[in-house]
């Protein structure tokens, strides 16, 4: 009787507790797996690295928008309040850059002078010596001026007012010449209007290494782009040449085709190249 009751009780225990034991066992297994993952660096990295990488990528893409203004403002404030420190920090760097640039330019200059000195018996050298003798200018000074001699790069003949390109000669074809002549005329018109100088004309434009000489005639003007040292003597020679060109152009400027004007300017260009 007692045994029977014990068996029933056992059956009841089995029925009531079997599921709990399975759950407990599964939980235990999972806990062991998590503990093992956390304790083993490799396993932990495998799980966490993709999450960190995704977050980092997101952070990097957000830097310009979120941190950009803050960084800019901080830098501005820092520079404003620490001008001396900034100058102190930049001074050696800029100094080195300038020093290197000057050294490089002096090396190039020295190379050119050597080349000229080595050609002592050349025709050019003879001409230089003669020029020095008759002008009273030292040969060395003439030599130096020759190193940065002005050079004509482009010539444009442009209709006044409309800015229509009548003809041009150029060694480069980087920018559309019709647009250049339009813009050049717009700049010229603006300056002539803005300063209310009456019937005065803009005669030159200078920008860094280039000068634009503008020779005005009645219905058109000629713009000459020059690089190198643009001296008064060169300007005077150029003006004389342009007056000669205008003798060919002025009377028939409205009837000449663009290619005809081009060839007149080309001859001017080439005569200058050969000088």
């Amino acid at each position, binding site marked *: 009787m007692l045994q029977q009751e014990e068996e029933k009780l056992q059956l009841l225990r089995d029925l009531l507790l079997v599921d709990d034991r399975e759950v407990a066992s599964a939980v235990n297994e999972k806990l062991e797996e998590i503990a093992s993952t956390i304790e083993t660096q490799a396993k932990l990295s495998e799980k966490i690295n993709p999450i960190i990488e995704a977050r980092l990528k997101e952070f990097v893409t957000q830097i310009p928008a979120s941190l950009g203004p803050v960084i800019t403002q901080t830098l501005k404030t820092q520079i404003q309040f620490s001008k001396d420190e900034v100058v102190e920090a930049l001074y050696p760097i800029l100094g080195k850059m300038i020093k290197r640039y000057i050294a490089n330019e002096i090396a190039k200059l020295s190379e050119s002078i050597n080349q000229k000195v080595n050609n002592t018996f050349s025709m050019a050298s003879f001409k230089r010596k003669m020029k020095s003798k008759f002008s009273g200018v030292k040969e060395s000074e003439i030599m130096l001026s020759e190193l940065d001699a002005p050079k004509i790069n482009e010539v444009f003949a442009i*209709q*006044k*007012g*409309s*800015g229509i390109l*009548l003809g041009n000669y150029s060694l480069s074809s980087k920018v559309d010449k*019709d647009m250049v002549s*339009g813009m050049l005329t717009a700049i010229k018109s603006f300056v002539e209007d803005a300063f209310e100088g009456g019937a005065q004309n803009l005669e030159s434009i200078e920008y860094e290494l280039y000068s634009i000489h503008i020779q005005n005639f009645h219905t058109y003007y000629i713009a000459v782009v020059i690089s190198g040292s643009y001296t008064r003597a060169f300007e005077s020679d150029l003006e004389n040449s342009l007056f000669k060109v205008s003798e060919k152009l002025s009377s028939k400027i409205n009837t000449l085709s663009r290619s005809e004007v081009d060839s007149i300017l080309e001859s001017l260009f080439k005569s200058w190249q050969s000088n």
Partner: protein
Amino acid sequence: MSHPKKIVILGHFGVGKTSLIRQFVDSQFSEDYLVTVGVHVKKKSVTIDNNEITLVIWDIEGNTSIDKARKSYLLGSHGFIYVFDLTRPETYANLKDQLHYLKEEYANVPVVVLGNKADQFGTTVSKEYFSTKEFEDCLFTSALTGENVDNAFVKLTKKIIE
């Protein structure tokens, strides 16, 4: 080859002069509005009856009236395009006076009048409103969609070479 023809685009601020030129020259449109300061010069060739004609287009800054524009920019023009904005009445309120001014000052220079932003017809603008005599010679263009833009420049070029 004949010399290029100078065309100047006139009109109030923000009527779409630069956008029309961009659409015509580069086939592009941008929603960004950039005020034209001074002048921009662009170039494009059109072919009419097998003749290629180069147009040098001066895009000058907007002005409420042509007499306020820098006169030197208009010198030597072969043609004018006057642009107004269909959505802004103040840009065509003085249209008659403006065309009269051009006729007086530049008697032999042809003009084409454009009502721009035609993509707004049926939404913010009524097409019927512009069917009156005052606008009978206008071309309605859209720099956004390109509608009639090429036609406008071709129309002016034909008038120039007539």
